[in-house]
């Protein structure tokens, strides 16, 4: 295995393969009921992040900003923050405000906790929204870190302990699609357990058309549920890229003694098995028949299509957790992940891949802190058949003339990203079918005869 920190020869980042930290925080905060994400910094960051997420989800994504001007940049952003909070409370009437900092407010060293404290003191007797503060300077991580930090901060701020509820399971899902969130909820429920999924933007970022305008779209994890998270029997802490003590699962375990199951994203048969096994042990119940059947059909389809995919070589990129999970899944169907890369730089990607894809004959080249031009250069020497990643790799796919199977976030050039299922046996089935069909399609397109049976 070759693991490079990043292309050591190039200083500039060319076509980044990551987004900035506050984006992840805003996405996470959008998964809390009646929560308005709020960026403490300049206007541009929040507007850009809104546009980026709207293009993916095709749903409203309001993010407030304290909108620094020159004054604030020099003397600090307290006045802007107070004014912004007051206006947001008046305009949106949120129950929760998810406040994330940007590079700007972090650099000038705004003491946000103190500002929030003083804001509360200036409004005595008023029922203010709950304020969650996540510190998310972009120069220290990627959107994935911002996401994890926002959820950690949420749990650290709101969750409470209490009598243990043996039926209650906290689900910390990682960056997955609304369809994935719904599916995870169903899976846990099927074991007779009560899930609290945090964040849960499934309704908010994939919701119905409205009869009246909603200032904050419906859906999201209710505040009362977040409070109860400390009493859960267990926490499913999905994704393994973040540092062990950085996630909400760590807070739940440490502060409230919740049993933590830290497993990778459940994509692929084996990774999904790990999720179902965890749920069996939490509930003391066997996996429900419906899922056993799903698993059976999935393995059967693996068998039916194994020859189409065996020995194919794939390039995988995206968020570290997604890359690790995809690599594991590809390995188990006989596709070799040959080049695995992420714009993130947690230092854990290679290990995550190794544990998600045990028994790989040959470890892929792993690049952390990659950008798309580095990736393009690295890709030239691996002779791949297929690319798996989000839509920003389209240019790469076009240059290499390889099919791109779109997964994860962002997907800006296809429709239905919010409804794309990745997790569980069912999500794996959909992915598998897409991959097989993508390979069949390119085979058919390349054949001179234009076979009509494949």
């Amino acid at each position, binding site marked *: 295995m070759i693991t490079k920190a990043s292309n050591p020869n*190039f*200083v*500039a*980042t*060319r*076509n*980044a393969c*990551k*987004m*900035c930290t*506050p*984006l992840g925080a805003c996405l996470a905060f959008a998964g809390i009921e009646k929560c308005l994400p*709020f960026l403490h*910094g*300049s*206007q*541009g960051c*929040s*507007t*850009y992040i*809104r*546009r980026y997420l*709207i293009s993916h989800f*095709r749903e*409203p994504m*309001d993010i*407030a*900003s*304290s*909108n*620094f*001007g*020159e004054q604030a*940049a020099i003397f600090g952003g307290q006045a802007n923050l107070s*004014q*912004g909070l*007051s*206006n*947001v409370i*008046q*305009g*949106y009437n949120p129950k929760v405000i998810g406040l994330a900092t940007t*590079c*700007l407010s972090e*650099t*000038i060293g705004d003491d946000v906790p103190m500002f929030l404290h003083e804001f509360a003191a200036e409004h005595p007797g008023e029922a203010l929204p709950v304020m969650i503060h996540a510190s998310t300077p*972009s*120069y220290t991580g990627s959107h994935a870190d911002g996401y994890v930090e926002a959820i950690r901060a949420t749990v650290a701020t709101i969750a409470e302990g209490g009598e243990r509820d043996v039926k209650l399971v906290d689900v910390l899902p990682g960056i997955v699609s609304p369809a994935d969130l719904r599916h995870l909820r169903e899976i846990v429920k099927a074991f007779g357990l009560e899930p609290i999924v945090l964040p849960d933007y499934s309704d908010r970022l994939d919701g119905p*058309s*409205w*009869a*009246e*305008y*909603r*200032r904050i779209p419906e859906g999201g994890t209710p505040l009362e549920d977040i409070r109860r998270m400390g009493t859960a029997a267990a926490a499913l802490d999905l994704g393994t890229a973040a540092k062990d003590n950085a996630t909400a699962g760590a807070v739940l375990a440490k502060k409230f003694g919740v049993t933590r199951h830290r497993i990778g994203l459940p994509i692929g048969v084996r990774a999904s098995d790990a999720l179902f096994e965890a749920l069996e042990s939490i509930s003391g119940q066997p996996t429900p028949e419906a899922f056993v059947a799903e698993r059976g059909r999935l393995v059967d389809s693996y068998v039916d299509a194994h020859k189409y995919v065996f020995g194919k070589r794939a390039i995988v990129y995206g968020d570290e957790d997604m890359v690790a999970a995809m690599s594991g899944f590809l390995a188990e169907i006989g596709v070799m992940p040959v080049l695995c890369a992420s714009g993130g730089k947690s230092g854990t990607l290679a290990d995550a891949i190794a544990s998600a894809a045990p028994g790989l004959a040959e470890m892929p080249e792993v690049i952390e802190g990659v950008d798309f*031009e580095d990736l393009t*250069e690295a890709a030239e020497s691996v002779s791949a058949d297929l690319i798996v990643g989000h839509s*920003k790799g389209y*240019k*790469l796919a076009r240059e290499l003339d390889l099919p791109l199977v779109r997964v994860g976030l962002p997907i800006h050039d296809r429709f239905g990203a919010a409804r794309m299922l990745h997790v569980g046996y069912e999500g794996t089935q959909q992915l598998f079918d897409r991959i097989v069909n993508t390979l069949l399609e390119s085979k058919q397109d390349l054949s001179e005869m234009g076979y009509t049976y494949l």
Partner: protein
Amino acid sequence: MNPTPDDIQILEARKAQVHTKGAAPFQLACEKHSVAGAVSQRACVFCGSRVVLYPITDALHLVHGPVGCAAYTWDIRGSQSSGPQLHRMSFSTDLREKDVIYGGEKKCEAALMELIQRYQPKAAFVYATCIVGLIGDDLEAVCRRVTERTGIDVIPVHSEGFAGSKKDGYSAACRAIDHLVGTSDAPPPPGPSINILGDFNIAGETWLIREYYERMGLNVIATITGDGRVDDIRRSHQAQLNVVQCSGSIKGLAQIMKKDYDIPFMHVSYFGLEDMSKALYDVAEHFNDPAMMVKAQALVRDEISAVMPELRKYREALQGKKAAVYTGGAFKAFSLVRSLRTLGVKTVIAGSQTGNPQDYLKLESLCDEGTVLLDDTNPLELAKFIDQTGADLLIGGVKERPIAYKLGVAFCDHNHERKDCLAGYVGMLNFAREVYSSVCSPVWSLTPRQRRTRDGQTAPLPKPIPAPPKPYLRRVRTAPKPKSNLTPLTLGGLEVTA
């Protein structure tokens, strides 16, 4: 409980930026820093600079700052190029914690050196983002050093996001372009000549406009910045007239060129039959050349008669509909109000992110009684007024789209990300088609708000108007022949012949 339109209240600090025509003597505050917490649809100074300079295709664009500012503007616009594709790359110095602490000058310089070596650009623009303003990097000095070392013009763009509004970004971009203007001594072309300012070649629009002018016998020296080239900008001072569209963004450059080179300028718009024709006539009139005017008249006649029969069909289908218009610059709003009128559609809400007092006076005078005028508005206000006025259509950008769709209201993208040519005569036809295919879609009758407001009454589904003939639409999509005097660029291993 969900709000009725009346429940959404305009924030105290925003009230002066909202006006309903006829309700009181006209007054609309504008050119203000966006209200904190108001969820403005504006971006930042950097955004203003980036949109103006972006289409200069053979320049290197390096965003100096943390990764987000560059990542979110990667290939964000539909600006096409007939040659180099370098502008579509997103280059960032991707500042990390230690750069923030110790300064980013070294990294910026190193990044520039290697990028210039690798991509051989004709010039380089280096954008300062918020953080650069704070950590105090001397960008001027860095650019000067790299210019000396490489012999390539490396131009700093003072676009720190917090230092003003998008408009200030426009001026910063104009000053950056001005660095190049007048730096070539190639002989001027014979005959009347112009520069096209303020068209960004979205979906090939600059090509279309250029072709119109060329048909009138004009030489187009530089297109700034749509399908822009550094060398063309260098000799743009040779033009006899600057024809300025989207005046908010690039008027600053026209003013500089007036002052420094005594080149007159005029404002035009290429959206809508009226404005497009007026642009051509105004330019012909400026040159005071009867033969040119005859050509312009023939062009207008030919083009209008080609699209009119099709347009009539759309007008029939759209007659009596109501539209909300929210644009970046106010000039586009003027054209849209007029174009919509051509289609029988009434504008009930009109606003912009960056209009000035004169702009809004004009906008008000164009609109009917009862039209709501908005400066620097936000999703809640838009939703409120769309609901209140019963608008059938919203024209805006991607950020506004979900507001319309959630309310069961049609939407037309008239921003930089669109992929359809909406300028010129063919653009008017495309625009009509765009509006029609959203407003007249059968899907609305299934949406809850339409069912509510129409008492569940569904209009009978009309037979769809077939799309206009392809060859006519395709004409604008073909890029003109690439110019051959440019060095080939290598992009990510692909040879891009310029």
